[in-house]
């Protein structure tokens, strides 16, 4: 038997091309006669547009066109609501979605007001200086709480308030928990915005070919199929006339799944008007305004407990910053609501959110997507409760874990995939024990920390748990084809942004067909090569597309065996697939290559039996009944310089369980990248909006991303609790690394400053903020 490739740390098929610069990215697309596009964006966060004076911009040499909202006519429409509201019991919902170009009003700094098309990007940007927009500045809605006060300016005047949605979900009866409690703790927690800052900004090339009546769009999107369908509808074209290609993409992280960004809608339209190919590449400054962001929430949370640390219930009331438009529906607040419950038994739960419009860039999911906040609130409540009850933070977690025999475990409320929040499988305590062992918990607490504190060092340790709902539906598909060469090609609809799809999908298929993973050629993200699918998001590629791959590959395997059985005059059970050949088990002399079979399966002359399908090919779809629940434990030892408040992560441990592992090397990369992003989110990255809604740090000079020097080596280990919901037993892993890091920083800092009673209740932090918090805590202690 050839060795199984599923589960092996195979090096990535795509890397030689990526490393040698031979992979196609959107900005690499060069077409004859191509024009370049620049956008005039509002400097003001909130203002009425009195008039727009093009100031002779159209007449400048090299300028092909200038458009404002009025030029779009009927094409000017607010974007679609991408996710309708799930069937949550108590719900109030006021959707407002982004527009291609601001018409009467701008609602966030950076909102596009006009488009210039010119021979070069330089000329296009020169033109922007010629256009004069007469604005009437309005007070901006920046703070979440202020947004709800009466007399506050309105982001959407017709609404009469700034509420995007309100929703309440309950499990059991919170009042009962409160009544029965020995201890009730209440706290307010703040989580602020960051931006995903993918290494590649967004970009679009749109080209209308009048002779073939074909529109081709290269787009840095995570959801090419949805873009094709939507644009075809908007432009009145057949779906077959529109081809969307999502080539290699330098990071998606969620914002690139926001469908129908103004730029996507406008380039597709303008190429039809002008009959010339158009290119727009977002620059880093634009990315800070024009690409979606996430994470502003304020939680008022209450936890009821018994003296022994048993959690009786939680009540959480929170505000969610939706930004100026909310195309993504309720996905984020619902994800926060659901993820808060974590790996713990919480018998009574009352969660109530208000999603608020503000004059800030649009909010849609960004890696972690609402989960960070939920985990932060839950883990902080447990830490604070443990402190008050005099229990150690490890015991309180252990005490409340859902036990292995309790799965499937229902939390009764509705998850973002519209199904009841039910954990498929899990085994939390062994992961906790492994993390404690790897971080050296006992040694640190008993020996290392006291010894170092005695000489004036500040060191803290932390351990947090979390779960992650992954692999949600609706569905994905895959087509597996054996080619005459004996190599296998695979197509799927999901886009790829660095996840290693070309390798992990290949591994899934390779085992079934009996070829090397390097002989499986994966195509993703080209709507002409695969018609159906939803996209890459919510840690779902491996689960949903991976299982579709598996189904299609299994079917092709059956076809191979059937055909080979006839050719070799052997029973199918007696055959095996090895190194691209089918042979009678143990008799390599009696064999045939799958390439030869593929040629025979596609006869060029003669007749075939009725009902014969050509080729060794199959297309299959997979849609899970509901998502799979991954889980993990992170642990950290943190050193704080007591004079400068700079941090050094001395040790970082991740013990993760995403079910069956397809490729441990790729998984490791996913986890490490996620942790790096989480570290950025916890201590470096913050978008600073002033009271007028202007962004004060719209460049990578002042928006600090973690660098190699800030990210430690990560020690990781994996538990495998397979998902019973899908044949491969896999769960998603894409977001796991990023989710619990804020909670981990908070606990470690509290621990390092426990002598002064530090209690961190906000993320992101910074040396400056830590200095303030420590100064306040010391003052309280001395008062």
């Amino acid at each position, binding site marked *: 038997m050839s060795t199984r490739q599923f589960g092996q740390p195979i090096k990535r098929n795509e890397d030689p091309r990526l490393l040698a610069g031979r992979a196609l990215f959107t900005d690499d697309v060069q077409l004859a006669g191509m024009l370049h596009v620049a956008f005039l964006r509002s400097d003001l966060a909130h203002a009425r547009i009195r008039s727009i004076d093009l100031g002779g911009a159209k007449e400048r040499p090299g300028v092909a066109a200038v458009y404002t909202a009025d030029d779009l006519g009927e094409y000017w429409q607010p974007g679609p609501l991408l996710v309708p509201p799930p069937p949550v019991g108590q719900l109030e919902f006021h959707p407002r979605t982004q527009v291609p170009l601001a018409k009467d009003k701008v609602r966030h700094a950076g909102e596009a007001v006009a488009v210039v098309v010119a021979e070069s990007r*330089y000329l296009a940007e020169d033109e922007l200086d010629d256009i004069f927009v007469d604005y009437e500045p309005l007070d901006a809605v920046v703070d979440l709480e202020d947004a709800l006060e009466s007399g506050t300016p309105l982001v959407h005047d017709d609404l009469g308030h700034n509420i995007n949605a309100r929703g309440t979900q309950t499990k059991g009866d919170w009042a009962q928990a409160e009544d029965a409690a020995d201890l009730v703790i209440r706290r307010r927690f703040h989580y602020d915005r960051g931006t995903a800052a993918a290494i590649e900004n967004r970009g679009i090339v749109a080209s209308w070919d009048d002779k073939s009546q074909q529109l081709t769009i290269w787009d840095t999107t995570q959801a090419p199929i949805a873009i094709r369908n939507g644009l075809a509808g908007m432009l009145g074209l057949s779906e077959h006339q529109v081809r969307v290609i999502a080539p290699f993409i330098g990071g998606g992280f969620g914002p690139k799944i926001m469908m129908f960004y103004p730029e996507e809608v406008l380039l597709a339209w303008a190429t039809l008007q002008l009959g010339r190919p158009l290119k727009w590449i977002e*620059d880093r400054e634009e990315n800070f305004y024009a690409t979606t962001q996430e994470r502003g929430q304020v939680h008022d949370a209450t936890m009821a407990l018994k003296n022994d640390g048993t959690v009786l219930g939680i009540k959480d009331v929170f505000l969610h910053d939706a930004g100026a438009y909310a195309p993504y529906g309720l996905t984020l607040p619902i994800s926060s609501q659901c993820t808060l419950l974590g790996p713990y038994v919480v018998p009574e739960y009352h969660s109530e959110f208000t999603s608020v419009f503000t004059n800030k860039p649009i909010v849609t999911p960004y890696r972690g997507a609402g989960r960070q906040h939920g985990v932060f609130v839950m883990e902080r409540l447990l830490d604070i409760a443990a402190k008050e009850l005099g229990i150690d933070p490890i015991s309180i977690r252990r005490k409340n874990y859902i036990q292995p025999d309790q799965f499937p475990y229902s939390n009764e409320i509705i998850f973002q995939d519209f199904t009841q929040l039910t954990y498929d499988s899990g085994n939390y305590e062994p992961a906790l024990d492994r993390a404690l062992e790897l971080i050296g918990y006992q040694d640190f607490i008993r020996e290392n920390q006291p010894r170092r504190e005695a000489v004036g060092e500040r060191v803290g340790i932390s351990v947090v748990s979390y779960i992650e709902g992954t692999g949600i539906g609706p569905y994905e598909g895959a087509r597996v084809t054996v080619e005459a060469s004996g190599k296998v090609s695979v197509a799927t609809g999901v886009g790829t942004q660095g996840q290693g799809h070309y390798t992990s999908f290949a591994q899934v298929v390779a085992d079934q067909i009996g070829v090397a993973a390097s002989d499986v050629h994966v195509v993703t993200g080209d709507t002409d090569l695969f018609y159906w699918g939803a996209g890459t998001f919510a840690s779902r590629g491996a689960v949903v597309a991976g299982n579709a791959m598996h189904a299609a590959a299994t079917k092709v395997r059956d076809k191979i065996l059937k055909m080979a059985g006839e050719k070799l005059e052997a029973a199918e059970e007696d055959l095996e697939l090895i190194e691209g050949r089918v042979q009678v088990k143990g008799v390599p002399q009696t064999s045939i290559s799958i390439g030869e079979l593929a040629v025979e399966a596609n006869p060029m002359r003669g007749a075939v039996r009725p009902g014969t399908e050509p080729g060794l090919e199959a297309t299959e779809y997979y849609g899970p009944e509901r998502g799979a629940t991954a889980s993990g434990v992170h642990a950290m030892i943190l050193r704080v310089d007591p004079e*400068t*408040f700079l941090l050094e992560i001395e040790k970082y441990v991740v013990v993760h369980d995403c079910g069956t592992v397809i490729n441990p090397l790729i998984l490791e990369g996913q986890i490490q990248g996620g942790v790096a992003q989480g570290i950025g989110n916890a201590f470096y990255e913050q978008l600073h909006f002033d009271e007028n809604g202007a962004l004060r740090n719209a460049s990578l000079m002042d928006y600090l991303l973690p660098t190699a*020097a800030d990210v430690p080596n990560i020690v990781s280990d994996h538990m495998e609790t397979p998902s019973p919901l899908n044949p491969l037993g896999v769960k998603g892993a894409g977001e796991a690394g990023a989710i619990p890091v804020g909670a981990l920083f908070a606990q470690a800092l509290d621990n390092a400053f426990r002598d002064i009673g530090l209690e961190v209740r906000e993320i992101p932090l910074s*040396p400056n903020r830590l*200095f303030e918090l420590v100064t306040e805590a010391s003052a309280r202690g001395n008062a």
Partner: protein
Amino acid sequence: MKPAAFDYFAPGTVDEALGLLADYGGDAKPLAGGQSLVPTMNFRLAQPAVLVDLNGIEELFFIREEEGGLRCGAMTRQRSVERSALVQRISPLLHEAMPHIAHSQIRNRGTIGGSLAHADPAAELPVLAVALDARMYVRSVTDARWVSARDFYMGLFATAMLPEEMLVEVAFPTLPSGSGWAFDEVARQHGNYAMCGAAAVVGLDGRRVVERARLVFLSVGEGPVEAEQAAALLVGEQPNAEAIRAAAETAATQDIDPVGDIHAGPAFRRHLARVIAERVLTRACERAAGTEGQ
């Protein structure tokens, strides 16, 4: 993020460059390493009509010893200064501080003259120039003059140079014997502009009493900020921990009046100023006394 259109000249000599600056006056800007100028042009914060590229002027690239001091041509790359054995010998403070400027990739392009002329209040080189009593050689078509670093800096991104003038050379005098020096700063990440930093130069007399002291901060004002009261406190003292702590305290509370930005508020800046002042003064005194590392 594309610059506005500009005319470009690449003169081969200083005289040619000065001629161009005289012709175009305020519309022209010298282009040195471009590490500050080009980003500001790409953001369209600066839109010079003319760039006078100094990169082809060989006479501006040099490091040499002269009159017992150090002379650097304006176009000397920061990386060359950092790696120069001559700099290390004659001006060890400069040598110690260079790696704190940005990242090595940026120092490969960035020049000593560009940084001194740019006068960024968060930059290291202007602070070092003031701490070391450097002198700037400034020329125009009609004039040539030496300006002391103290007189050179006139506020936020402002120097004593006129638009038609150019910085040609900088001279760092050798420190007298009995001197000690130190530089330190705190940045959120390696290579970023610092939230606060300081250079100290201390001179001891034969009885090991402080006879000269200078402490200069970056990132706490509109340019290099001298802590004069702190320095005065130290003079006449035996350098001990208590005296240094008092001087650092004075520096942080009396000599500076920092404003906040998104990375550090005024209180944190003062706190860092105290911490850094104590560190650099301690090290400078130890070096002056020859007790460093003891």
